[in-house]
């Protein structure tokens, strides 16, 4: 019998989280039957996309009580289904929802939960994963004690490639009922406060970040121009955030966001160990700094020594030309 691999498909207002698609791709590489779990309200239409991205089967729970991700409702259903079907391995993106869901479900299932893997394989049915620890300063090999329990693993966003959808793939779609009635769910969602036009740093392919070297809030102008030209998001060091030049949501590092874009451009950032903790797994790092001794050059693939107020506008102009903007 094929190993049962389950993937939690996280969606927000009908859009599937990129990390869930990456998890589907990862599941496919492990060999086995892949089941997507799609919970929400009015989400049935997404099942086809889940199949196209690698699932053989989708379990869809469609109910008003599941409209928002609420860990009580989602975990109760996940646990009920897992008890019925005994999957060997469950994967989710290591997002706020994925971590909460798997942490809660693991308690009920008396199973183990492994957070934030950047590599995963199955050896004789047992997960062997790699995850960053000590704020990304070290890596650990992690595994589960044997015991026939489901193994719950969350995958760091952008650590696994997103599969190309294949519209020709086929699979089955099965409806399942929610496990909890609305009045059994303690947390009520009143509202969302969403800032418009914000690119999620965790999902960004390109990030341009500014540090103390930008000298002030206006100094983020050239950083923003370059980020926009490249279609990327804007990041910052803690020094720039603490100075009040840019909101905390942009902070990259140990006490900010952990990011792994294809391209990370650090401008006016010295490259402290805490900043590196949040960005050193980026694919290509570019440093722009006037101090050739700055530690950021030790992790960068390319560097430009000079004044960011001259280099960044030159880069923006160059890319506008190349990208035909």
């Amino acid at each position, binding site marked *: 019998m094929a190993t049962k691999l389950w993937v939690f498909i996280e969606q927000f*207002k009908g859009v599937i*989280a990129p990390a869930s698609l990456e998890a589907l791709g990862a599941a496919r590489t492990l060999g086995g039957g892949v089941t997507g779990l799609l919970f929400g309200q009015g989400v049935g239409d997404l099942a086809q996309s889940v199949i196209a991205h690698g699932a053989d089967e989708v379990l869809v729970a469609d109910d008003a009580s599941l409209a*928002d991700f609420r*860990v*009580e409702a989602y975990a109760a259903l996940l646990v009920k289904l897992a008890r019925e079907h005994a999957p060997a391995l469950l994967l989710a993106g290591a*997002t*706020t*929802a994925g*971590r*909460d869901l*798997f*942490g*809660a479900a*693991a*308690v*009920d299932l008396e199973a*183990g*939960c492994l*957070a*934030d893997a950047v590599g995963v394989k199955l050896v004789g049915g047992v997960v062997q994963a790699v995850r*960053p*620890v*000590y704020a990304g*300063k*070290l890596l*650990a*090999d*992690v*595994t*589960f*004690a044997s*015991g026939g329990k489901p193994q719950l693993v969350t995958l760091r966003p952008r650590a696994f490639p997103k599969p190309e959808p294949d519209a020709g793939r086929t699979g089955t779609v099965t409806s399942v009922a929610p496990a909890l009635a609305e009045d059994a769910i303690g*947390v009520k*969602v*009143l509202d*969302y406060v969403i800032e418009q036009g914000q690119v*999620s740093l965790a999902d960004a*392919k*390109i990030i341009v970040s500014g540090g103390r070297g930008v000298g002030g809030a206006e100094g983020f102008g050239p950083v923003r121009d370059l980020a926009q030209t490249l279609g990327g998001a804007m990041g910052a060091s803690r020094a720039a955030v603490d100075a009040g030049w840019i909101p*905390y949501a942009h902070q990259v590092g*140990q*006490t*900010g966001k952990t990011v792994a874009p294809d391209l990370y451009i650090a401008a006016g950032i010295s490259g402290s*160990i*805490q900043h590196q903790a949040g960005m*050193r797994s980026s*694919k290509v*790092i570019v440093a722009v700094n006037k101090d050739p001794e700055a530690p950021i050059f*030790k992790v960068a*693939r*390319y*560097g*430009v*020594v000079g004044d960011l107020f001259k280099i960044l*506008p*030159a*880069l923006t102009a*160059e*890319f506008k030309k*190349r990208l035909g903007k």
Partner: protein
Amino acid sequence: MNVVVCVKQTPDSAAKIAVENGQVTWDAGLVLNPWDEYAVEEAIRLKEKHGGKATALCLGPESAKEALKTCVAMGCDEAILIADPVLDGSDALATAYVLALAIQKVGAVDVALFGKQAIDGDTGLVPIAVARRLGWAPLTYTVQIAEIDAGAKTIKALRTLEQGKQVVTAKLPAVVGTVKEINEPRYPSFMGIRKAAKANIAVWKAADLGADAARVGTAGSAVRWPSIYPLPAREGAVELLDGSPEEAAAKLADKLIAEKVI
């Protein structure tokens, strides 16, 4: 309002971390986990606003008393260390099991506060797992406690998610996992430091909590860490691109296009 704040002791975030013979070493002291400072601050603010008591709770070795003293110096009323060799090797879920028992033993707790994650293990699983064990409202990633109605025993909070902020209400007791934006942690006062120096930190053993030996320590943990090692060095030295800003920009554009990252 009876508040508990769970804290861990971790290496200083500025420490150089290395691995020697499979053991993790660092070149600086141990500190209160930086994320937990926000939880401690929030605990103190809750008790200042609503009255009652703030108790700091830590599962760790004897040396972790220092982290608890920091909590007292900041303003916590009491501190409890759970220290027992049988708990060594507990993974996040086993740790949560023990902390949940300890929170029950403290008794009549309205809010249990947590940091976002511990900067050594970095799992971020303990707060949700404690909430699940206790069956309390799971308010992880809380960026603001907007309102607590101590009479009606309700809480309104803002949680920060990838998509934006979510406004939720729930009944107390609640587990509140904090994030950095929630407040600005205070520094310990001179009086606080004196109080902490004299503080009597209670030490609880697994048996005091009635913990099931099969659920704690290495034996009770499902997750194993067979090895830990440094990151592979980033290959090759940095390639510096020189010339005028325009020349450097053109060279860099060539490189990045060749790397297919643009």
